[in-house]
């Protein structure tokens, strides 16, 4: 079960994934593959199912149908304990950082080590301070509460928390949303650095094209619950897909009609 997957097995393979909320179809038979060590960015407008896709892959949400394989191991239909075992391969950076308000910054970063891996608190604190240093934050920040930090610092702490358990796969949910362009670029650089250092597979979801171009090896666009285009980052400007063209240039006119009313 824990045997190392062959190198040609995709790290993440999603086939025919479906997910609906009531009558609203969010994922409509979505197919996606991410190779080991690859950095894939999924782009798409708000409400197109990017976050739902990420939550289904990491196991926070159950799909209504289809298949999700991690290292060739099927996740759909598995028991909670088996899914929890595979979820240990993941780290996730949440859109709003999702830091625990009740804990100091260092304990947020060390949380996965202390609670998930039973590392003694002293050793976990040292590891946390090392990871904070990796994202450019000094040890004094470790003693602060998350509410005392700016949005950019919170994102950095969340990144340190995601990498502290040295995951094989990291999911970044809108890593630069709500940040000024300079801080967004700092976060992009940190993502590239951390993913390279860990040799991890990365899947990012964003609608920030500057960020997507910088951190992606490959970009995939999601529209109406399906991947409508995917290819190397360098090819996105010559995709030949009208939806992609409209999205990357941010035009109101085109095949994508914005939904102005919730379902």
């Amino acid at each position, binding site marked *: 079960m824990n045997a190392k997957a062959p190198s040609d097995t995709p790290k993440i393979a999603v086939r025919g994934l479906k997910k609906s909320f009531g009558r609203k179809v969010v994922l409509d038979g979505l197919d996606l593959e991410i190779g080991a060590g690859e950095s894939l960015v999924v782009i798409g407008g708000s409400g197109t199912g990017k976050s739902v896709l990420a*939550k289904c892959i*990491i196991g*926070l949400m159950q799909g209504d149908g289809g298949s999700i394989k991690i290292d060739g191991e099927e996740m759909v239909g598995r028991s909670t304990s088996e899914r929890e075992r595979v*979820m240990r391969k993941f780290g996730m950076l949440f859109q709003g950082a*999702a830091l*625990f308000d009740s804990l100091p910054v260092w304990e947020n970063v060390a949380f*996965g080590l202390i609670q998930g891996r039973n590392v003694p608190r002293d050793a976990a604190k040292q590891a946390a301070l090392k990871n904070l240093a990796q994202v450019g934050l000094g040890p004094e920040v470790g003693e602060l509460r998350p509410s005392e930090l700016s949005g950019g610092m919170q994102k950095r702490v969340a990144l340190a928390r995601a990498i502290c358990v040295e995951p094989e796969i990291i999911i970044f949910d809108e890593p630069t949303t709500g940040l000024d362009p300079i801080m967004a670029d700092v976060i992009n650089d940190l993502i590239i650095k951390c993913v390279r250092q860990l040799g991890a597979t990365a899947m990012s979801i964003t609608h920030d094209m500057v960020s997507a171009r910088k951190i992606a090896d490959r970009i995939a666009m999601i529209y109406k619950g399906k991947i409508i285009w995917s290819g190397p980052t360098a090819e996105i400007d010559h995709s030949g897909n009208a939806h992609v063209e409209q999205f990357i240039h941010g035009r109101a006119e085109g095949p994508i009609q914005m939904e102005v009313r919730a379902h």
Partner: protein
Amino acid sequence: MNPFHFLASIGAVFLNGLSAAGRMALFTLSTLSHCVRPPFYLRLLGRQMIDIGYYSLPVVGLTALFTGMVLALQTYTGFSSFAAESSVPTVVVLSVTRELGPVIGALMVAGRIGAAIAAELGTMRVTDQIDALTTLSTNPFKYLVVPRVLAGTIAMPILVFIADIIGVFGGFLVGSYKLRFNPAAYLQHTADFLQTNDVTAGLVKAAVFGFVIALMGCYFGYNSKGGAQGVGAATTYAVVSASILILLLDYVLTAILFVGR
């Protein structure tokens, strides 16, 4: 208006009610099963015991004091009309230990702790902190729900035991200083008619109420959605449902613990 629409809306309300009861029952069963399976977060249990028990002591103590005082006054004014003033200490101690200590204490704690738990977990839910726990290999049920429910169940009887003493003391103060009872005779009357079962049955009620308060706070907080408005609604539901369940279960437990014996 189409009468079938009216029937359909009644049916929808009924089905929604059944589905909510089912979800709540599953949540309760899941909580109970996680209570007996490791890992156990003793540090968190201790912190919750302090939050629920120690910090609720002032409000529950004050409520118990005034309840005992008012009870002594009311009983005296009622009983004096047929020369039964000597029953005041007995009525005060039995009412406080069997009924008022657990129920009024629990209603105060429902307002203070049920709301706090629902607001905290609700905020954690809408800011993805509960999902973050899962991604960090930590079961949110074990980490968030179990310590609060266990702490509520353990702390509430301790709190009510102290409230019982303060409530009886309140009655004693009014009896001795305002109603001119002989203090020694008042205490003697209090002790003469009080049985161990009166106190233990009140503490059993308190444990059940503590469980219900924490469970409702956790259930509505854990399942809240829709931002700040959703958290506000979760807080309201937690307090209202815990209060109603306390009164309902009080009747059921009284029937089992006192009438049936």
